[in-house]
């Protein structure tokens, strides 16, 4: 008796070993992978809406944190096991498209006019379309109203320049109580890239790195000096223990650059939600705010290309864009649906995000950015710690990029 039972249990366990992901009741199951937990409700809503229309299809969502997402996707690409549908990012797009990993979406014949042209173009390669625009994001200046009120200083406005930013931050500095005026961390998209383009510099354009340009180096230097010379930003050490976003939310920095994707987290944080507001970025020689957009891509070797394409088309539809907006996921890419997102934020100046698209600069990317991104972070860290000067770090990075891109 005991033996039979043991055998039975073993048999069950044996089955568990080889059972694939729970078999769906529908005829077709497709997997849908992305990295942002904050956007999970939005993505699930889209998947559910699609399943309601197509009862024979089951869409399985998979969230993986940013770093692991790309590690995994790369392993999956090499192993021929990509998820059927997944988010694509400008940094990585080129690598996947040139390796033939993406499903050609050209024959969907979508109308791309509702999407920002820059983002459609981002995912267009050699005349074919490889991803459908999902959303866009820009960078704004967030400030803590309470700290401004306490210091009796007027809130930031669209007349601000780098100098106003520096001088105001100095006034807000209260180092004794651990409060800094501004956050200038080692960050690209919500960091020094904005300054570089406001200063007429470049990161990467037409096959050339822009890190050797004096404008670029000057901008990066100004950014780093906020911390190193002006003392208006917490130290690099401090950012490793608490990210700039956390420090802002804890009221330890009065201002920071912040991407629109953080808004759903900020407005649900009990401590900061009523204390902060947004403003367009201060200007340098010119105005600029880095924008970027994600896309929905499909796997080249999916078992169900027709279903995948149909699902991607649905993700790009007005209906799905409204769904992701209503779930506070991100600013939808589909023109005219932005207000579904902005309407959710009543007490902050969320509109500045959509305003800045006018002079927005596409987040720089290059065919091999994924190969030099890590080097960039490391070299910039060396510049922050004083191991290299800003010029040395930039020049070394310039050479590293040119070498990688030349191959």
């Amino acid at each position: 008796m005991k033996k039979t039972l043991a055998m039975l249990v073993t048999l069950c366990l044996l089955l568990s070993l080889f059972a694939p992901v729970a078999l769906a009741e529908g005829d077709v199951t497709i997997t849908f992978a992305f990295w942002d937990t904050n956007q999970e409700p939005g993505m699930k809503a889209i998947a559910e809406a699609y399943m309601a229309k197509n009862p024979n299809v089951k869409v399985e969502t998979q969230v993986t944190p940013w770093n692991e997402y790309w590690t995994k996707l790369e392993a999956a690409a090499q192993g021929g096991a990509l998820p059927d549908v997944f988010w694509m990012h400008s940094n990585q797009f080129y690598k996947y498209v040139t390796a033939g990993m993406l499903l050609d979406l050209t024959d969907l014949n979508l109308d791309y006019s509702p999407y920002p042209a820059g983002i459609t173009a981002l995912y267009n390669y050699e005349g074919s379309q490889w991803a459908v625009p999902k959303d866009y994001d820009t960078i704004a200046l967030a400030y803590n109203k309470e700290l401004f009120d306490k210091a009796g200083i007027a809130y930031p406005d669209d007349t601000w320049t780098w100098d106003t930013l520096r001088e105001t931050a100095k006034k807000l500095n209260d180092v004794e109580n651990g409060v800094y005026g501004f956050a200038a961390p080692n960050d690209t998209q919500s960091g020094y890239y904005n300054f570089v383009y406001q200063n007429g510099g470049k990161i990467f354009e037409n096959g050339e790195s822009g890190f050797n340009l004096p404008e670029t180096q000057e901008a990066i230097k100004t950014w780093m000096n906020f911390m190193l010379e002006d003392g208006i930003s917490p130290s690099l050490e401090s950012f490793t223990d608490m990210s700039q976003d956390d420090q802002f939310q804890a009221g330890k920095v009065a201002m920071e650059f912040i991407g629109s994707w953080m808004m759903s987290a900020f407005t649900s944080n009990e401590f900061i939600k009523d204390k902060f507001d947004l403003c367009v970025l201060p200007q340098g020689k010119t105005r600029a705010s880095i924008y970027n957009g994600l896309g929905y891509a499909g796997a080249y070797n999916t078992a169900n290309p027709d279903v995948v394409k149909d699902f991607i088309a649905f993700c790009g539809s007005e209906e799905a864009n409204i769904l992701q907006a209503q779930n506070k996921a991100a600013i939808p890419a589909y023109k005219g649906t932005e207000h579904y997102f902005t309407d959710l934020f009543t007490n902050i100046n969320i509109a500045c995000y959509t305003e800045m698209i006018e002079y927005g600069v596409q987040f720089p990317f290059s065919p091999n950015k994924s190969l030099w991104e890590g080097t960039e972070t490391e070299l910039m860290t060396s510049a922050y710690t004083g191991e290299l000067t800003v010029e040395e770090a930039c020049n070394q990075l310039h050479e590293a990029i040119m070498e990688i891109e030349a191959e």
Partner: protein
Amino acid sequence: MSAQAINSDLRRKKPFRFQSDWGWAYLLIAPTIIGLIILNLYPFVETIILSTQKSQGLGAAKFVGLQNYEKLFADKQIWQSTWNTLYYMILTVPVGVFLALVLAVLLNSKIRGRDVYRGIYFMPMVVAPAAVAMVWKWIFNAEVGILNQFLGLFGVATINWLSDPNTAIISCAMIGIWSAVGYDLVLILAGLQSISTSYYEASEIDGASAVQRFFHITVPLISPTLFFVVIMRVMTSIKQFDTVYLLIKSTNPAYKKTITLMVMFYREAFEKFNKGYASAIVMWSFVIIMVITAIQFWSEKKLVHYE
């Protein structure tokens, strides 16, 4: 694996043999050997091949000869990471093993609640490393962490435990010691308990002090266990990955002076996508491990006392 075992191997008598029963033997080892060939040997060979190649993105790799190795030895960071790894080993092994030894000797002195103490010290071993890293990251937090707050009571200035280039690796080593001390303690205690009491009784009659007894009886008699513990610690510290990977990101100012060879390998392979260069790093670690293994064999003959 221990050198003790191999040594005892050399001294063992010829085993009993069933004549002409190769078939059985092969059948018995087949699953393990086939498994190891597929799971480990083939990947190892693959790594050697990869170390002579350069891969570009997701495309096919091309042969570049020893270029990766040239780059390796010219790379300042590889020497820094090698030093970091060895430094981590120097920090964790002597202190960790010494602490474990002291605690084991104390626990061996027939005191009340021995099992409770032993159970507490062993506890970190049953917690996933991700959880260990998270809780220590929280305790070490320079801004709001409890450790700095506590030390602040005694007037100690803020210490950037995990972001000061000089202390980050020490903090990681502290976590390493905290996690492993119970494990080492259990092994050493077992060794202590197998020492026959007659040695102590004899020395007591001779009037030896507790300290003399410790150095003249305890240490020699548990030297095989101690040696095994040291070797195991040396090997795991050279392969250190989890703690440093989870706690030290590339924007951390302490990054360069903290990352170990395995973390560097992982970042090159999976974050910078340089599989070829990453494989060369692995081969370099392999060389270091071989050298240390050789030292271990040599020192065992000199230092370890077998009964």
